[in-house]
């Protein structure tokens, strides 16, 4: 996969998630995001990458 494809995929995923969050609404968005993360963990199947991603996401959030 070229770096251009990766950037395209990232943009597409960004928009898909934004759309889904808007459709689901604030009351259920926490649950949606938790389900999404678990589904991605299942697809990744790699604890080390999940741990790195958790560290990345936690940064500046305390």
């Amino acid at each position, binding site marked *: 996969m070229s770096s251009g494809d990766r950037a395209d995929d990232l943009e597409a995923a960004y928009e898909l998630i934004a759309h889904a969050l808007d459709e689901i609404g604030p009351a259920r968005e*926490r*649950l949606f995001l938790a*389900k999404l*993360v*678990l589904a991605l963990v*299942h697809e990744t199947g790699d604890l080390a990458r999940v741990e790195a991603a958790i560290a990345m996401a936690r940064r500046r959030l305390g």
Partner: protein
Amino acid sequence: MPEPAKSSLYFDYPHFPFVTPPELRGEAVRHGVAIVGGGPVGLACALELARFGVASVVIEDDDTVADGSRAVCVARRSMDILQQLGPGGGVAERFADKGLPWTGGRSFYRDQVVFELDMPHGPDERHGPMLNLQQCYMELYLAEAAAASGLVDIRWQSRVSAVAQDGAGATLTVDTPDGAYELIADYVVAADGARSAMRQLMGLRLNGTSYEGTYLIADIKMASTHPIERRAWFDPPSNPGSTVLMHKQPDDIWRVDYQILDDQDAEAEMREDRIRERIQTQLDMVGETVAWELDWYSLYKAHCLCLDDYRHGRVFFVGDAAHLVPIFGVRGLNSGFADANNLGWKLAWAVQGKGDDALLDSYSAERRAATLEIFRQAGKSTRFMTPPSRGYALMREAALELALDHDWPRPLIDPRQSAPYDYADSTLNSPGDDFAAGPAPGAPLANARQGQLGNRATFLLDHLGPDCTLLHFAGADPVPAETLAACLVDGPPCRALVVAATAQDMTGMTVLADATGKLAATYGAEPGTTYLARPDGHVAARWRQLDATQVRAALARLTGRSP
């Protein structure tokens, strides 16, 4: 001292009278082992000792057995242990005759199935994976077996109020309706439960984690025809936000456990009308329409707490006195039976001069390791059954939602039912060979099917005695009688048990037929394969070929004496 007389819709509580002990008649008596607490674990300890011919005295402050179903679930390994108890046996049979066996269950999210539990079982196993039996029956059967053994002196209505020990022995001060006396013993087993007086008298503290979630556990009498299975509901319509469990027990008694939420007033939730209301909504949800009565209830909180050491000089802590483990996965009493099984032979050998003091230390090392593994497993179950924080609650909801449509999240919902612990790192294990199948050093022997006696199937543990067992697979080869005899010279008590193509009469050993080859397959055995099992049925070592020098070294290690 006794509480007001217990009553129940299904169980007649026996009354055990106080009998004046010899000490109060001015006789000088010394006991090998005194057991404080006549609950299921204390009585199992007494029967373990009786198995080796060692007498004990049991000090119990009540005048009857425990009220309510309490522990309920007896796991397969516990049935293997109970099968071996006492000089006369028969305890496992009584449990099995009365109890209700079960092999699986379902977990629901709201009202949809998200997990199906199916525990391995079949005709090649002596006992089923799980048996439901109220604790009052368990204690009654154990107390009756103890009395019948002639080796157990149960002293009802007696309470220990002080304990002292030195290099020569331990002294318990025992309060009774006829006054106090001093009881002297070589060793003391503290089996006096979650609120152990022995622990308090000795100034010992439990360490670990306590969980906030509270459950109300209740027994109801209801003539339901629903099959025997474990059912768990997460966030059910009957009790939104709560977790509910239902188990069937003998005598049309059903156990209903439900979580009391943090924002609910615990005092109001303990009122009987409120308990009835919450149980009724649950029964309405599952479609039960028959009348029911409330028999017993109690509150429960999950803990992962244990003593730092289960041995303090001459005092050994067992069961809830040593460790409090969460209810989920049914490890409480099952781990207590495993404690009794582990301590019994070591204490018996110490009393009989067959084992060294270091052997007694191995009790704490092995059972503490088992407790920590339980904490690891049951801690996970507890955090799923009763999420302790917002984060855990959200992740559980996400997992349950996904499990409605997918298989992959379902392992998160697995109730992780009690499994036997392997003492893989025990100092009592000896080096041997690698095997593709069968129990590794530290693991319990598999109670596999061996043969047939009349119309009854027989299993390996039916042939095991109270000694160590040298299990040799001869196959079609001649039985190496001389080498087997050489293995057993000068060592601790050990009996050779040979598995051969045909049963034979041989002096000093038992030779069993393995007609179907199932036993050899279970143990990954070829002709020459030899397992050494401890008196508690755990494997100490295994080899591809029989070598008397190696067997004798492994047996010597089991005495705890330095080589």
